[in-house]
């Protein structure tokens, strides 16, 4: 398939792999964080770690939209959905995220009207078709999905729709990266920067990472060769003693981002003073809410939202996994009590979650895989 196979070429992967190995200093261990869950998924789905020398380790970051939703917000959403006459709409990923009383799927099975949509515009369509119902869109995601939510709010306003609102859970990536950089738990050598988020916000927001923390950043695409090349670019920066923000994903990411998308976000949403992240706790100015001018589309103002903070299950170590402190398999309940079919933590839910990716694709030691592949 054109424009896909080119980025999955095994010969080029071998060449890059050799170049990466050539840059490894003997005795040094390299640890890079891929911030985005999409990268985590690609790494496991294509078996990319087979191409890395043992001294290069990839650590999975917090950039999975579903994974960072705290339990309390899921409970709030369920509470909201239970209001009479409400149709809750949500992306498929969100459907299986456990709250303290089950997931959207469980609520749906008990008769709550929760529908899966592929785009917030589908929610708008449902609102038009059901004028006697109140349709709420469970808005989640980083800057990647915020523009489509923003455009939906703008369109709802233009159409004068009165039965549509959003339950806004959009978060921003930079404060989360900063929280990880300030965490004493983890020492990283560099970041594989999020490709889709950067399509919207550009590369400038990461400059502080290179400047103030001395860590190289390479914004990367989502095909396996993109990621391998980004690792090579990070290794090259380290070997040359540089720490810069570089853009590997130039075919999609403009250095200054997408100004139209940013404008739409800015017009409809503003930063919250603080927001709770699963496992990371409260982080200031790390999430978006609906602006006062569009308050009539803000489900948090239209409905009773308990807003109670729910502690994560004790056994769950998603926070440590999201911060990259623990590998998925190091969690106490990984694969035994917590599996993709009965997840305890969010990282096991989304295909972008590190635990789900590891469980579904990589649940096998590299050593054994190599033995089998060579047989």
């Amino acid at each position, binding site marked *: *398939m054109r424009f896909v*196979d080119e980025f*999955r070429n*095994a010969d080029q*992967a071998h060449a890059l792999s050799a170049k990466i190995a050539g840059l490894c200093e003997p005795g040094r*261990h390299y640890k890079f964080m891929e911030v985005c869950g999409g990268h985590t998924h690609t790494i496991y789905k*294509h*078996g990319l770690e*087979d*191409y890395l020398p043992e001294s290069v380790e990839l650590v999975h970051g917090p950039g999975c939209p579903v994974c960072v939703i705290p339990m*309390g917000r899921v409970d*709030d959403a369920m509470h909201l959905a239970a209001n009479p006459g409400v149709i809750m709409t949500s992306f*498929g990923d969100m459907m*299986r995220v456990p709250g303290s009383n089950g997931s959207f*799927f*469980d609520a*749906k*099975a008990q008769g709550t009207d929760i529908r*899966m949509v592929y785009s917030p515009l*589908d929610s708008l369509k449902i609102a038009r078709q059901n004028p006697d119902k109140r349709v709420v869109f469970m808005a989640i995601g980083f800057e990647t999905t915020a523009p489509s939510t923003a455009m939906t709010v703008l369109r709802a306003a233009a159409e004068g729709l009165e039965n549509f609102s959003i339950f806004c859970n959009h978060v921003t990536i930079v404060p989360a990266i900063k*929280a990880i950089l*300030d*965490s*004493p738990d983890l020492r990283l050598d560099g970041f594989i920067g999020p490709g889709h988020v950067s399509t919207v916000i550009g590369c400038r927001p990461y400059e502080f990472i290179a400047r103030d923390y001395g860590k190289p950043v390479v914004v990367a695409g989502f095909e396996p060769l993109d990621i391998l090349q980004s690792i090579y670019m990070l290794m090259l920066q380290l070997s040359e003693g540089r720490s810069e923000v570089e853009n590997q994903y130039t075919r999609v990411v403009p250095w200054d981002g997408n100004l139209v998308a940013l404008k739409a976000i800015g017009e409809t949403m503003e930063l*919250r*003073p*603080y927001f*709770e992240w699963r496992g*990371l*706790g*409260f*982080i200031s*100015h790390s999430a978006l*809410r609906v602006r006062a001018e569009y308050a009539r589309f*803000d489900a*948090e103002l239209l*409905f*009773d*939202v308990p*807003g109670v*903070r729910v502690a994560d299950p004790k056994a769950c170590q998603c926070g440590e996994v999201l911060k990259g*402190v623990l590998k998925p*398999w190091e969690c*106490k309940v*990984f*694969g*035994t009590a917590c*599996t*993709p*079919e*009965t997840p305890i933590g969010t990282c096991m839910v989304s295909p972008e979650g590190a635990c789900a990716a590891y469980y579904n*694709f990589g*649940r*096998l*030691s590299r050593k*054994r*895989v190599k033995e*089998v*592949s060579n*047989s």
Partner: protein
Amino acid sequence: MTAGRADTGTDAGGSVQEDHSAAWVADALREHDELTALAAELPNPRDERGPGAPQPLPGTVREEQVLERIDRARRSRPRVKEERITMSHGAGGKATRTLVEAIFLDAFRNPLLEPLEDAARLDVNGSRVALTTDSYVVSPLFFPGGNIGDLAVNGTVNDLAVSGAVPLYLSAGFILEEGFGVDDLRRIVASMHDAAAAAGVQVVTGDTKVVEKGKADGCYINTAGIGVIERETALGVAQARPGDVVMVSGPIGDHGITIMLARGELDIEADVISDTAPLNGLVAGLLAAAPGIRAMRDATRGGVATILNEVATDAGVCVVVTEDDIPVRPEVRGASELLGIDPMYVACEGRLVVVVDSADAASALAAMRAHPLGAGAAIIGHVAEDPPGIVLLKTSFGGTRIVDLLVGDPLPRIC
């Protein structure tokens, strides 16, 4: 409780991040210190990570040990943890398997049911007979390449054929929704007739029920079928042995992608039609040409990946397949790529997965390719000994990964 935003409540406190992240950092530090102190007393399996690497947590073990623990958990007796049926229980993946084993098999347990093959093989007055049943709830009812009617006939014919039986007679039960168009019903039944004629079977008994509007979705069909087993073979996924060859009878995923696109919810168009077809002719040729056939399955819900997992689990072997060798039409691959799904999990309604003794692999492949429905047949992998219960995929990119059972993917109703 009053309306208000979570970030204006009191639970988060006043001056935000510094306080809270400080508390979190302090907690993390304290915990880390406690654990590090404990860890100092334990041998460190991760010393090779070099200076500056995190100390191991007490109680954490090495990756291999964790993987063994997971294997044990996966082998343990299946339990349905949910209180209610969710759509996952019908998706053909892990939840379906758990439901079948924990509820149905548990209640009906008997040696004929236990293999959970596509059809039961029975002795009736000295004759060997295969019996199967299947219900069809596909939406939409009409789709490119077929409709619920021919699907209902072909599906049951195929379940009999892959059990090594010659399909003979079918039953047809209809659950119709009040208000359903009689013309639509006529079209469906006409397709059933044509499909039955093509497969050489007859519909010999039936049932009709009508439910109130809103209690069903137009038309549901159940078919059951019997066939005779003329030549006894020990067919079954548990028969797979290391060294065997794994093949498919043609490009995979056509039916599932057709249905997803036919629902019109995705705004994607592709030139692809359902692969629904009766496989009894293909199977007959295959069995005649290759006595070393160990197992055949038609890859319906859950796709080829699910069948391969059943082979790996039930035979206690490792199935190794090569992504580049798995035939997938470009249209199907493109649509899957856009939808973020793996064609390996997408349903087919006229494709065989075959496990065959390597000595008979060439003749089996030739026999399939000689039949119009097997023209695109291909060898996709082999059976290995270790690690048991695992399906491994050699990716086009050159890596290796696991292919697990599908986990409750919210895919639409496809059969």
